[in-house]
């Protein structure tokens, strides 16, 4: 990214319900774990992404997720856990 483009990035209004693209991999923080779905949940704004192959130990971690499906009407996505890529900025 050029120096100038860094200044002009983000001059826009971003939705509270961002769209996820099936087939794409994204990095997200996992916010919760839902035992009934056996999946952790990432909240991307108010969009919910259910991430399978995860456990409670992944909550709070930054993980890479392969997005499998997205329902735009409900702003709900489903994806597969790929790997842990980072920690919270203040892991305590």
């Amino acid at each position, binding site marked *: 990214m050029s*120096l100038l483009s860094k200044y002009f990035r983000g001059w826009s209004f971003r939705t509270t319900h*961002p769209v996820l693209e099936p087939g794409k991999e994204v990095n997200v923080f996992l916010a919760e*774990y839902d035992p009934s779905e056996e999946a952790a949940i990432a909240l*991307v704004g108010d969009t919910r992404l259910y991430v399978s192959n995860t456990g409670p130990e992944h909550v709070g971690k930054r993980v890479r997720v392969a997005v499998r499906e997205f329902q735009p009407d409900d702003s709900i996505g489903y994806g597969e856990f790929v790997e842990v890529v980072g920690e919270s*900025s203040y892991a*305590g």
Partner: protein
Amino acid sequence: MTDVKFIWADSEPYSEWDESEMSESTDPEVMTGFGGDGEEEGPRIEFYGGRGMSAVPIAFFIVWAIAQTALWRISDTAGLIAGMLIGLIVGMFFVKGNWKTYANTIFEGMTQPVAVTAIVAWIWAGMFAQLLQDGGFVDGLIWLANVAGVGAALFPAVTFVLAAVFTTGIGTGYGSTVAFVTLFFPAGVLLGANPVVMFGAILSGAIFGDNLAPVSDTTIVSAVTQDSDIGGVVASRFKYALAAAIPAAIAYVLVGGAFSGVDVAGDAQQLLVAQSDPVGLVHLLSMGVLLVLAISGRHIVEAISWGIVVAVAANLLLGLSSVADIVSFNAPADAPLAEPLAFLPFLRIVEDPEAVGVSGSIIDGASGFFALSILVLLIIAAAQIMIRGGAFQAILDWSLENLATNVRNAELTMVGSAALINAIITINTAAEVAIGPYISKIGERFNLNGYRRANILDAQTAALGYIFPWSGGVLVGYTAMQELPAQYEWFDQSLVVNPVEVVPFVFHGWLLVAVFVLAAITGFGREYLIDRESGEVARV
């Protein structure tokens, strides 16, 4: 939500949680925890009176800080260190069982990378800032105002712009407030500008730079607590700063024309000429080098070091300061090799025993941050006690249940909490360090990227630190202003601005807070982690 068990970052496996330790959430199924998972989990500390008591050290510090800075107007970082130390000792008396875990947690907190990164960046930034100040940067800006021939009506707006440029260069809003109150304020008053509006313009310029400068202490804290690169943070906050600064400048033009000044006998032109020197403008180059390198992704220590090299070269080549002004060994005459090496440009022989030591821009700049460095270590230690004791988690749980229920509310909560703590604690950097982990956790939950979180945090920190009568920025400006009657015969005591009067005229501060309230509501500038990840914070 009733079927979902919330397990927070680094939580213990929930099967190991005792029922009594469960969240205070209204939902019995909701379980929370914070403080390290499984193997990484640090020891928990139990307190008499429940986990809320682990907030005693921080709470004691906040009460101390409010009393010291807001009620008694003592803007002294060393005093806050005492408050935090006593708070940590008081907190220990509420610990159940062995106090060793509590003591070890203090060390654990102090060794967090957040604190070390901020301290290193501050010390480098302090050296750079002092070189610019000692190199006559402000004199260059005064020259610029003088040759532009600005009148009374426009002088506050020009003061705002120049103070903003100056603070963006040196990073310290307090330092530029003192410099501008001492040098620009009397000139503006003589020209016929309204004193209250002038003071407001100076504070606004300080806020702009404190918020945007890569060498600003608050910029550094905002970036490192949100795990983001400082250059990227600066570039990403440019839009918010501009969105507030343009209307603020227009407001100063309008108000500058509408509010009349005070008739005083004196020659403004003479005052400006006496303190102006165009050579100081060379430091726009020092500042530019640092900005370009920081934003292009160089390590912050590397970027500031290059800025220091350019500033030192400019000061020496253009005669703005001598080698001894930059670094000087002040040795006693009876030192073994003092007299024979007295020809060295950085060696001075002093008669007065109290003058023995090392001095100059480099040491003055670095040492200016020593007290703040100790304070930040202690605050982070107290925050760690709060995390290990569970109070941090309790506050988070409550916030997520009642405030940050969706991304818009989360951002409004971040704006409100950062604004509140900065409004009540005078020394804004200390307030920013204390609230940093909370902002991080709320923002990460909704996958707001590090730039967005850092920008929300720092805007409130910078703005609220210069608005209220008890704010650090207002206090240092007011203190500097009280020296003016002794300095100028014509400067009557009645010209000293009452800190209460300036509150509505700190336009950039108010507008910056308003910009972020609107940004949270409308989504302006919002970025998620999936849109862009911030660069690695420049850790050492």
